[in-house]
């Protein structure tokens, strides 16, 4: 069983990446991915991209789980969380770089209340903290931000990249932090976390279309890792942790 917890739909406003619904379905079928979490790209057209994800996942409830992007700085951010929950979306994506999330910690923390009330996990869309916003702000705001969120909102599931600053410390401290492998290049980091911190909270996420799901799956299947751990990473963890969203 393969579950991909990180596939983007649509186009990125700043980078030349795009992925259409039929692209996602074709790759899922070809590489036997039984379920994908569908995330919009970060956007300032919040309602438009969230509606697109909702419409897509509604057509394929047996295969897809939809997430919404939320801009914590938006005046209607809290209302948008309630709206997307009503649309049938099952999680919230925050993009620290695009929306400057960790410069708005108080607003982000307020957002966690409707996320908790609706059982929505919160996924941070980052690949490498050392570039982009992380390089401008330094890595501490990322560590401090997640440290605060995970402590104050223990019922909310937080999903982050294996490159998150001091992720080992955070995972050991908080059981509500989970790892999204982030494609082939994140797999080695994810595998290390599975070995060093534990295999039960690390999940495969392709970060497609930037990364290709086939490479991430192959990396998990061929890197040095117990076969039973491989199955956890490829899908069993995601089913156990996020099965209530399916």
């Amino acid at each position: 069983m393969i579950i991909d917890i990180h596939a983007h739909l649509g186009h990125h406003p700043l980078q030349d990446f795009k992925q259409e619904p039929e692209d996602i379905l074709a790759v899922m079928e070809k590489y036997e991915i039984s379920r994908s979490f569908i995330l919009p790209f970060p956007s300032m057209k919040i309602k438009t991209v969230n509606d697109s994800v909702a419409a897509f996942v509604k057509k394929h409830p047996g295969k897809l789980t939809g997430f919404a992007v939320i801009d914590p700085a938006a005046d209607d951010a809290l209302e948008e969380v309630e709206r997307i929950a009503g649309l049938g979306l099952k999680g919230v994506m925050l993009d620290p770089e695009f929306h400057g999330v960790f410069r708005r910690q108080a607003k982000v923390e307020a957002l966690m209340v409707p996320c908790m009330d609706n059982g929505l996990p919160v996924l941070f869309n980052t690949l490498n903290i050392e570039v982009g916003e992380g390089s401008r702000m330094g890595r501490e705001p990322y560590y401090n931000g997640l440290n605060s969120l995970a402590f104050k909102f223990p019922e909310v599931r937080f999903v982050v990249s294996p490159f998150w600053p001091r992720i080992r410390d955070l995972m050991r401290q908080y059981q509500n932090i989970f790892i999204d492998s982030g494609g082939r290049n994140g797999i080695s980091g994810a595998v290390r976390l599975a070995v060093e911190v534990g295999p039960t909270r690390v999940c495969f996420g392709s970060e497609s279309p930037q990364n290709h799901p086939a490479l991430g799956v192959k990396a998990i299947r061929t890197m040095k890792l117990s076969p039973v751990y491989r199955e956890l990473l490829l899908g069993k963890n995601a089913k156990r942790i996020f099965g209530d969203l399916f």
Partner: protein
Amino acid sequence: MDPAGIDMACVFGNDNEYVAEAAKKFPDRYIPFVYFDPRYEEVAVETVEKYATELGWKGVKVGHQHAVARFMYPLMEKAEEHGLLVVIHSDHSIRNHPYIIGDIANSFPKVKTVILHMGGGTCFDSELLSTKMAEKNPNIYLETCYSNPYAIKQAVETIGADRVMFGSDDSNGGYGSRFEKPGQYQDLMLDAVRVIGLPKDQEEAILGGTIANLMGIDA
């Protein structure tokens, strides 16, 4: 190399003599490149000249943090003089950024220059900027290891497969050692090209034709 079906490899390391011994032992498998270490200042450039003239080596490897070195321009002058292929490590840092390599290559348009790793693979912006640099500078070539199929496909569409080449960046105790069996790491890197579904001739160019042409090897 054998389990992954790789016939030949460009090899380099900070011990040029070790590379020379390996290339002498397996002349049909290894293409030796001299390692440029600017910490030795003018001696680094003299070393490049020595291997080019005495052993006939045709390529130079520039490693991490060296693309901004004070002796990069003398190196490029030497490369132009001897017709050497210059391959330069890249990533998203200021010292190895594709912009830096693009600027160097732009100053030496006769020197064929390879941006290794297309910007590093951990930052999509630097991958895409590698292609931009190659688009603006016909003497720039791109090497694919760590890069994602999306970026490789875009590079092929922009500059053509005959300026893109496969690489694995494996080494003793390197990334390959994290895999269960020999060759699996290289196989994964090869898949980054294969999954794109390029026409056969383009795929063959990336997997060997491009570098064979540059090095004057019958593929």
